[in-house]
């Protein structure tokens, strides 16, 4: 296998640049929001019954944020140093838990939802698109497309409520929330794993249903020009078997769909955050809603950073894989 070093190098450089941009944005944005986050947090703590905290804590809080009278570049430096040590500040809503601790516990659940739903909907959606594309302009194609468009036109959370209402409340087939049953022991044991899967079915199903349409339509529109392409008709003319021809068209069509991954990961994470709040799934999204309600800036900031890093890493991996799959991309960048 040829290793596309230059391509990897280029992508790594881009990854680092975007990551740095996101980290900096995360530094700037809270400073743009009117009002001093430290003061907001402080007053929230007092309002929520933490009356005993001393005013000195305000200074301490300000320090936590890196908000001080120090010049901007010093603040920025402190922010980067803190970040390097994994210090994301202290949450307000879940006082006195550090943000990093909350994220450490929430992120695995979110990753579980994101990865499983993206994997399944990518696979199923692309297969559906392949089916529609191969039978293009037939009733099979039309019904497939209509289904995809119809599913995509539901706001994600509305669909979630419908699913929740039917499957969890009416026929009580699935639990209404949580990530696992309180009767099982967390750990690597079979009852726990089964319980986790059982609890993940509804949220994953909803995310799949809402994101399926995009994959289906994208794949269909990618595979049709491929089916009409010269190399496909040449393969047919050489007597390739039907499945070989379809496989070639599919493989070539799926490559541009992979670049669509960047968008889809972002969208899926959006979907997941919403679903988690509806299914009370203890992932990042659930904490996010609470954080927004309580104006928990450290937590918002932490989640923001965590999600972006996760998405960037995901994209980076896809990009690198893409370089191995499509030799043309390698050449373009070489």
């Amino acid at each position: 296998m040829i290793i596309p070093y230059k391509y990897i190098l280029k992508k790594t450089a881009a990854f680092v640049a975007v990551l740095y941009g996101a980290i900096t944005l995360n530094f700037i944005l809270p400073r743009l929001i009117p009002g001093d986050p430290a003061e907001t947090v402080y007053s929230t703590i007092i309002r929520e019954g933490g009356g005993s905290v001393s005013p000195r804590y305000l200074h301490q809080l300000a320090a936590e944020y890196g908000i001080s009278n120090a010049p901007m570049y010093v603040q920025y430096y402190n922010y980067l140093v803190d970040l390097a040590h994994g210090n994301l500040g202290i949450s307000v809503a879940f006082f006195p838990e550090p943000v990093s601790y909350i994220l450490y516990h929430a992120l695995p659940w979110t990753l579980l939802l994101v990865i499983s739903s993206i994997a399944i909907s990518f696979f199923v959606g692309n297969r559906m698109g392949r089916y529609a594309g191969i039978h293009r302009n037939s009733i099979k194609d039309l019904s497939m497309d209509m289904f995809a468009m119809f599913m995509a036109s539901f706001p994600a959370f509305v669909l979630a409520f419908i699913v929740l209402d039917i499957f969890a409340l009416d026929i009580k087939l699935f639990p209404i929330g949580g990530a696992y049953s309180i009767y099982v022991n967390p750990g690597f044991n079979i009852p726990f794993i089964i319980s986790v899967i059982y609890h993940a079915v509804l949220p994953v199903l909803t995310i799949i249903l809402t994101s399926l349409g995009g994959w289906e339509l994208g794949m269909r529109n990618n595979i049709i020009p491929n089916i009409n392409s010269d190399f496909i008709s040449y393969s047919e003319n050489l007597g390739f078997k039907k499945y070989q021809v379809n496989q070639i068209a599919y493989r070539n069509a799926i490559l541009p769909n992979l670049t669509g991954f960047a968008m889809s990961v972002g969208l899926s994470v959006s979907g997941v955050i919403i679903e988690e709040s509806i299914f009370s799934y203890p992932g990042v999204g659930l904490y996010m809603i609470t954080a927004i309600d309580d104006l928990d800036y450290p937590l918002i900031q932490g989640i923001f950073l965590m999600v972006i890093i996760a998405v960037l890493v995901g994209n980076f991996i896809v990009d690198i894989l893409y370089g191995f799959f499509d030799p043309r991309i390698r050449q373009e960048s070489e």
Partner: protein
Amino acid sequence: MKMEEQEVIKDNKSLLGKIINPLKILLSNGKAKAGFIMLVALILFAILGQFFSPYNPTKYEFARGMPPSYAHLLGTTIYGQDVFSQLFYGAAPTLMVGFAVGVLGTLISIAVGISAGFASERVNTVITGIINIFLIIPGVLLIMLFGSFFLGLHQSLGYLPTILILIITGWAFGARTFRSITLSIAKRDFILSSILIGESRLSIIFRQIIRAIFPVIISNFFFTAMYGTMGLTFVEYLGVGNLLQVNWGTMLYWAINNEAYLTGMWWWILPPSFMISILMFSFILLNFGMDEIGNPSLRRFKSKNKNENKKIIGDLDVNIEN
């Protein structure tokens, strides 16, 4: 088919002709036609809603949580508002947000995308980087961040903050499309030829590139409008919009927050969901139909002369995904 359309266009140079002819092209596609009819019906619904709303949609003047009846076609909310009035009256703002985001977002995408496609390599790389950052960051996060930034300002600014948030989070999709499409068109001989005869860049952009990518612009408009509608429901659902306004998004917010799905008040939660879905569906159909018009290899019929066909298509046949 193309040939005929071109002829019709040049025969009708009047303003009316300029409106009708693109419409004819749009309606030549089944999916676009279905979407168009649905959209027109919704627009009519929205206009009528501004004048003929049976009750004041914001007043809490009726019995609470009544099921549908003659007096209240879709019953009342838990606060005693008439649901049908809200649905009727809230159509216009919902559509308005969708269209505003569609138009403004597309304009920004065109400006950014085309200038990136036409700029030097370095500028192009920088703009592409910015586009990618906006694409990769989950929209919900941005909506929340910018939403909380605007939270205190909503009352005085009406829908402006919401629209602004959605444009900020929604322009990048289109910009990416326009960038790649412009990059491929800018290398074509007919653009080089215009450079040689001394056309300025702006002139080339406005006279040639915009025309060449017009179907993509329209398709992108519907896509962004779709995003705008979906985004409005998100903004409201996440509670970072102005919840005192009446639109389908806020209706959903209140219905969900009062657990209408648990208390069996289907008449409160289903109508707005249903209407939003129809609106989204019409936008998706129009978007998809326009894609097929702009990219005839997805269409069933081809023009007679194979070679010719290829060349005409060649100018629009740009893979939007890349």
